[in-house]
């Protein structure tokens, strides 16, 4: 067989692969359009997005929106209720609650989004690897994921942070580990279906390596579903961070974290309930915003997924 002939054959296979992928690309576009349409039809998603963006802006420019230094103590004005001077009152050291919430949100968002992103990368990779390779690789990876899921997430997180020490890196690590299995599960299922499709077969026929197929051909088709669920798990991650710092395993004081503020305020629940309620509401609002976004997006991808 001449070299030229071989090339045309590969060319033909390549163009089939390209065509199939373009078709899939087309599907992805309609998916985006569907997401867009749905968003217009579903005001809840829009509300969630607006709230979330507002929180991101407020916390990203915390020094600008804060009315006080979050660490500045003033023993003369402790446990005050709302006033023009202190928008959301003060805590037991006279620190300004509004300013502390802004900085606390900043930390919550950074930890929550960072650990979700890390879990997304590693979890999706593991899920695709398990689904694509099948056999023992699949059994081992998914068994380990099942084992991790046997521990309640909060308890896994609590344990990792307690054992390794409560600091920023370990908290991110702990939350990442607890949500990796969920991403792995979501990425694995569609991979199993995708690997039987013609475009993957033609990639294989062209001699693409498994790694290349997984990264450039499977991942783009799985990532949509994974991203949608990422917003729901970001909400989860932010809540776990708040729980950990509530238990006393957060980023060390005096850095304001929402969970720590709630725990400290809880001691004064009889005299000044607002000290713990405002940071609690801040956690609620950011988690709710992410859930609203995720819930709507999930509906638009598959209305049957709404459970």
């Amino acid at each position: 067989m001449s070299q030229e002939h071989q090339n045309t054959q590969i060319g033909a296979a390549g163009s089939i692969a390209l065509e199939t992928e373009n078709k899939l690309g087309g599907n992805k576009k309609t998916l985006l359009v569907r997401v867009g349409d749905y968003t217009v039809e579903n005001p809840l998603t829009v509300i969630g997005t607006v709230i979330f963006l507002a929180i991101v802006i407020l916390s990203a420019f915390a020094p600008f929106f804060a009315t006080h230094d979050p660490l500045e103590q003033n023993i003369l004005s402790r446990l005050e209720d709302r006033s023009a001077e202190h928008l959301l009152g003060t805590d037991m050291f006279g620190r300004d609650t509004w300013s502390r919430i802004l900085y606390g949100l900043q930390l919550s968002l950074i930890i929550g989004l960072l650990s979700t992103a890390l879990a997304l990368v590693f979890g999706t990779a593991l899920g695709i690897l398990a689904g694509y390779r099948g056999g023992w690789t699949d059994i081992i990876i998914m068994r380990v994921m099942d084992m991790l899921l046997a521990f309640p997430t909060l308890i896994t997180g609590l344990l990792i942070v307690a054992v390794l020490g409560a600091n920023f890196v370990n908290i991110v690590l702990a939350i990442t580990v607890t949500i990796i299995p969920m991403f792995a599960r979501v990425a694995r299922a569609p991979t199993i279906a995708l690997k039987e499709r013609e475009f993957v077969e033609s990639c294989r026929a062209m001699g693409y390596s498994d790694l290349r197929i997984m990264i450039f051909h499977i991942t783009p088709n799985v990532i949509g579903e994974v991203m949608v669920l990422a917003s729901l798990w970001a909400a989860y991650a932010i809540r776990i961070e708040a729980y950990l710092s509530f238990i006393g395993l957060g980023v060390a004081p005096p850095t304001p974290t929402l969970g720590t503020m709630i725990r400290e305020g809880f001691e004064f629940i009889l005299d000044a309930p607002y000290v713990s309620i405002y940071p609690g509401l801040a956690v609620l609002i950011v988690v709710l915003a992410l859930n609203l976004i995720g819930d709507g997006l999930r509906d638009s991808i598959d209305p049957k997924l709404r459970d």
Partner: protein
Amino acid sequence: MGAYIFGRSLSAVPTLFGVLTIVFVLIRIAPGDPALAILGDNASQEALDAFRERMGLNEPILAQYLDFLTQIARGSLGDSMVSGKPVLDSVFEVLPYTLELAFAAIVIGVIIGVPLGIWAALTRDGWVDNTLRVISLLGLSFPAFLTAILLILWLAIEVPLFPVISNPDGALGARLYNLFLPAFSLGLILVAYVVRTTRSSMLDVLSEDYIRTARAKGAPGRRLIYHHALRNALIPIVTVVGLYFGLLIGNSVLTEIVFNRPGLGKLIVLSLNQRDYTTLQGLLVVVAFMVVLVNLLTDLVYGLIDPRVKFK
């Protein structure tokens, strides 16, 4: 059915084994010397050596691992590093409190959640359905401690119906009365999940042919919903309740802290603070085994309700 139960139970064995390994590894990667952590910096070299010897910390890691597994196989979780008490005793002392809390929360979650879910399904896309959807999303987003704090403020301080601190002992009546507020605050989380699952599962079932047939044959609406539809719709609800058992156990840590109730969660936090690694190890084994067991039971119940389920 027998084969299904056997097969499914057998498949839990490697998971349990893996869980034990994970617990063992996690506890061992803790930085710092447990002997120093427990006896303090001023402890004499002899005391430290004796402690390490007694706890088997001098043995090679593989021998420690095998010891750990044999111990578990013999049904023991070892002794506490701090009090010297058998870990199993301390666990069983507080386990009933957490179990009654989780169980009461499940009852509350199902009692409130299932009817609301049916209501939402029957009024699909109407204002009741939409309101319930927003409320359940709100419920999903509520941090466990905020629910607890607000309930205390409202039902224990504002309107002093219930005690602020939940005293877990006493006669049955008093015990249930004390349990109500913590269980309600934990159960509310589950309500949101149950409403959503009941709704979607009822909608699925209501669109099936046999329901149309029953309707065509003139089955009255109420009977149709409760007798024909709900029975099949229950399957996913059982699964969700089983799945969220772990979530409830995890969140009970927070509920127990806020309501100052004894339980597994409080014991976990206490042994973390005391660096009591043997107790911690035992607690984790118990928690993970419970979750695996509940998942197993859920699958078995699933097989009982739906004879089509086969073990693969």
